[in-house]
């Protein structure tokens, strides 16, 4: 469905007397729609396998053996095929199916959320009979039952099209809803007491052709005819899924996935879909805040707040100022903030990542692959990174489809089992901190020199190497913040030795790739250019000459009293930086903490001296760069709360007050400058962004060269300690999740997960509270047996509510050794 081969042959099909061209293998229903003849359907969905259940798309077809009714959703076109979509036979069959569907469908359209956008209602209004011949009593079921925390199911309305169940099973791999019972009593349901707790459940609501499935955040909120909408980009992770943002009375009420062939195929993770609730949250900051002498943050006007910021900056030498964060921002705001810091203040102490990602130089220098390239039939994907199901939901769905349906081979090199392990050809789990050794072993085995490494046997490595076929895409990210990033960097560099290899970044945070492209990392300028190139110096007054500090460096400097002003641009170091002790020390020591924030977070609540309220995704115009480097439009749909402003406006205002106007009156101005300062952005014209509104514009090329790195030494395992593995969960204690009413409760309480041998050695029942202690700190958490955790490791999710794993981590060590003991 993605990159079809360059097959130029076509077949000719006659539809209602008009000849159309179609590609061999194309389904008749698609060929007709593409050429302007819409055949009604309920079960067919272009991104799922046809099941031919609803029979609504029956049309009269003559493929050489005489005319007859055929379901157009399962019939590939053939040359000379004649199709009648308006004939009496077709109409009679379709009317008959519609009557059958309505026989048991309740007539509660006036109170149904789907009313006004319901395919069944539309079909009935357009073609259906005026009254029903069905005088028997209809089927009855208990009215809507919650099948998860977010999704409600009304089985009376269900027409059993198999879309939701197919999605759950085939697309998401979460077979938690299923057809139950048989025949006229068939219904969709969950297993008793096992809800449809899928990260992708919202997609089923979107694709339900009737009002059987509804999502809690939208139930009874609005009517379709009251909605305004715009095409935009989801902001909660770096996939850059294309969405329609729908609003009513200046409030976002719903996000729908848009089928961008290059990106998300119309699917969204629930985090992407329901994160808009955070925009509407009571906790949103609507006014600037200043910390009072008593320690309290109190609302203030913009003037005194900005004055406090500029006063602090004026008094401080550039080398003692730092900026952490910015991945939440649009490309334009990122550019403005980078220009303020690197071009105005003249400091390179800027880092959009919080020590939990990958070195910018690595990400920008590796040969890159697009999602579609990674998913090419016959290729191989090596996952050397986080659990995509947890971190990058829509990418997980794309990779899953490629592996299950398109013959892509998946090899995992991950610290524990992931959401893709069930379909992986090989799952290799290296000991924490030793992934580089395993990557090198894989490369060696590919050359015929099999050896074991990092606790993985030579045989396993050899088998995985033998499975490598076709072009290889390494999905590269940070699987665990409890081990040094150097091991991942070294692994990536080793994997560059594989033939025909390219990389797809799995950095997770929103627009982090835009931030890197705008130069929000030490040593970088906009346009994937090293600081040494200095190409923006004509436009930027004051470009630093020496590379600055990254987040860890800034925090160390702050803790040592060498940094006076720290700007947190949508950043929460306490929660997200791997080493909580260092983050706390730094924030305590720094003189002035300025937070540009939409929702208060633990770092800003405790340490910010000035808080400036920022607008969020649907409240600003701009563009977004996804993990491929694809730039797409993010459009304003509603106004921000109170006096919150776009981030670029805040940067401009600070710059103006400091006496070096950035020169921006609009986001278009910023984009124009971006295009002018780097040839990389030449394609980002207004015309191109409009023309490629759905797919976006892929930015390619880089002037950054590969870093050099060597894998860190890891200590020998002793018999008593385990190595900590700390990856992300989709729902955590992050401010966005916690401010979304339907997601907040989904953040699971943390548990330490142990493999079979370690769990048995511990010798206590699942759920028992145990002590997890490192040299840095300790946590009391329940223990769980998890066959997916290798012996010698202990897995503990990052940033879980109430049990921050980063209290255990010392970021100066290569691995985090912990003891898990009965208290």
């Amino acid at each position, binding site marked *: 469905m993605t990159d079809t081969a360059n097959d130029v042959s076509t077949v000719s099909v006659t539809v209602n007397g008009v000849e159309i061209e179609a590609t061999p293998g194309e389904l008749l229903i698609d060929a007709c729609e593409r050429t302007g003849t819409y055949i009604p359907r309920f079960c067919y969905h272009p991104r799922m396998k046809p099941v031919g259940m609803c029979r609504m798309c029956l049309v009269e077809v003559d493929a050489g053996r005489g005319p007859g009714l055929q379901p157009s959703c399962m019939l590939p076109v053939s040359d000379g095929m004649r199709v009648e979509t308006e004939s009496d036979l077709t109409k009679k069959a379709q009317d008959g199916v519609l009557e059958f569907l309505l026989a048991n469908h309740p007539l509660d359209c006036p109170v149904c959320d789907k009313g006004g956008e319901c395919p069944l209602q539309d079909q009935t209004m357009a073609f259906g009979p005026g009254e029903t011949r069905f005088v028997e009593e209809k089927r009855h079921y208990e009215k809507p039952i919650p099948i998860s925390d977010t999704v409600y199911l009304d089985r009376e309305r269900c027409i059993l099209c198999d879309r939701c169940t197919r999605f759950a099973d085939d697309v998401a791999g979460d077979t938690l809803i299923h057809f139950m019972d048989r025949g006229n009593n068939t219904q969709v349901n969950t*297993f008793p007491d*096992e809800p449809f707790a899928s990260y992708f459940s919202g997609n089923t609501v979107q694709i339900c052709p009737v009002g059987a499935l509804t999502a809690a955040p939208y139930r009874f909120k609005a009517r379709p005819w009251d909605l305004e909408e715009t095409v935009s980009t989801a902001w909660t992770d770096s996939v850059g899924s294309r969405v329609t943002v729908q609003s009513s009375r200046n409030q976002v009420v719903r996000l729908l996935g848009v089928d961008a062939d290059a990106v998300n195929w119309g699917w969204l993770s629930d985090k992407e879909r329901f994160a808009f609730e955070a925009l509407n949250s009571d906790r949103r900051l609507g006014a600037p805040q200043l910390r009072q002498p008593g320690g309290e943050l109190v609302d203030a006007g913009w003037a005194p707040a900005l004055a406090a910021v500029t006063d602090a900056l004026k008094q401080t030498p550039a080398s003692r100022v730092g900026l952490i964060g910015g991945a939440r921002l649009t490309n334009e705001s990122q550019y403005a903030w980078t220009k303020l810091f690197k071009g105005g203040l003249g400091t390179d102490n800027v880092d959009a990542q919080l020590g939990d990602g990958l070195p910018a130089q690595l990400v920008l220098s590796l040969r890159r692959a697009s999602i579609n390239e990674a998913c090419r039939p016959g290729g191989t994907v090596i996952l050397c990174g986080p659990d995509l199901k947890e971190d990058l939901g829509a990418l997980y769905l794309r990779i899953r489809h490629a592996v299950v349906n398109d013959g892509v081979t998946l090899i995992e090199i991950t610290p524990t089992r992931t959401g893709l392990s069930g379909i992986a050809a090989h799952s290799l789990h290296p000991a924490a901190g030793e992934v580089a050794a395993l990557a090198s072993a894989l490369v060696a085995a590919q050359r015929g020199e099999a050896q074991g490494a990092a606790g993985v046997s030579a045989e396993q490595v050899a088998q995985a190497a033998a499975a490598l076929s076709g072009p290889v895409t390494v999905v590269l990210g940070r699987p665990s913040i409890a081990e040094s990033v150097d091991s991942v960097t070294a692994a990536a560099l080793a994997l560059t030795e594989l033939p025909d290899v390219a990389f797809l970044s799995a950095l997770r945070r929103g627009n982090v790739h835009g931030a890197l492209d705008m130069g929000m990392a030490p040593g970088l300028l906009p346009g994937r250019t090293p600081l040494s190139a200095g190409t923006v110096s004509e436009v930027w007054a004051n470009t630093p000459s020496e590379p600055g500090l990254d987040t860890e460096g800034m925090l160390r400097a702050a803790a040592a009293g060498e940094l006076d002003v720290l700007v947190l641009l949508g950043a929460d170091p306490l929660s997200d930086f791997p080493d909580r002790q260092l983050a706390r020390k730094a924030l305590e020591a720094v003189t002035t903490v300025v937070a540009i924030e939409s929702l208060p977070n633990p770092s800003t609540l405790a340490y910010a001296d000035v808080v400036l309220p920022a607008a969020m995704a649907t409240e600003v115009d701009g563009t977004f760069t996804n993990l491929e480097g694809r730039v797409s439009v993010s459009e304003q749909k509603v106004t921000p709360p109170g006096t919150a402003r776009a981030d670029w406006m805040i940067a401009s205002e600070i710059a103006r007050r400091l006496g070096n106007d950035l020169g921006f009156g609009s986001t278009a101005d910023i984009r124009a400058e971006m295009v002018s300062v780097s040839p990389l952005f030449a394609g980002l014209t207004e015309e191109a962004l409009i023309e490629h509104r759905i797919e976006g514009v892929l930015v390619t090329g880089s002037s950054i060269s590969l870093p050099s790195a060597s894998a860190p030494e890891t200590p020998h395992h002793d018999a008593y300690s385990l190595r900590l593995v700390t990856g992300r969960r989709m729902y955590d204690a992050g401010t966005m999740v916690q401010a979304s009413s339907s997601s907040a409760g989904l953040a699971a309480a943390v548990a330490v997960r142990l493999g079979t041998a370690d769990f048995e050695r511990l010798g206590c029942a699942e759920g028992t509270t145990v002590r997890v202690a490192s040299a840095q700190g300790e946590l009391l958490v329940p223990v769980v047996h998890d066959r997916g955790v290798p012996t010698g490791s202990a897995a503990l999710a990052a940033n879980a509510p109430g049990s921050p794993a980063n209290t255990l981590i010392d970021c100066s060590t290569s691995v985090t050794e912990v003891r898990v003991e009965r208290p």
Partner: protein
Amino acid sequence: MTTEFFSNDNLHLAHEIVSRYPVKKSALIPLLHLAQEQHGWVCDDAMRQIADLTGTTPAEVRGTGTFYEMFKFHPVGKYVVNVCTNISCQLLGGEELLAHAEQTLGVKAGGTTADGLFTLEDVECIAACTEAPCLQVNYRYRLKVTDDDFDTLIADLRAGRTAEIPEHGTLAAVRQHIPADAMAGIVPPEQATEMPVWLSRNNQDAGGQG
């Protein structure tokens, strides 16, 4: 988390059943039968463990199971009495026999007697059409059944005079068992892509096999 439902013996059997299929999920229906044999009906714990044994989810197990009417998802009588009323039996009094059965047992078709002994069902053709009207008790046939025959049968069942009829859930009294040394080899389809050796005989001289 593994849920333990099967007894040790049955778990052993379950593994043996799974091993007879190239793909584990194929054992799903036989394992539901095994669960019903152990418990009389299929409870949630059974489905959870079957999901575990077959690499599926409990929702899938229930989805498959509820498609088939022999599986019961709530307690049923020790004896499930299935009276056929399909056409061949109807022509010779099947529906009247069912009405008599309802009267004798005091429950409508689909119901279970208060003592938990009998569940009465109105079933479709059970392939004894020349011996109409017919019924099954726990899938053991009774043929050309008169009202009196029915009452006698019920009396016998109550009195325990029907040793050959097991409690509900048990089907065949003999199980298949393939000795390891006799098995040709059951492997997943992706491991059986070679041409079977004896087919190469087709390439040899057609007369050379005698």
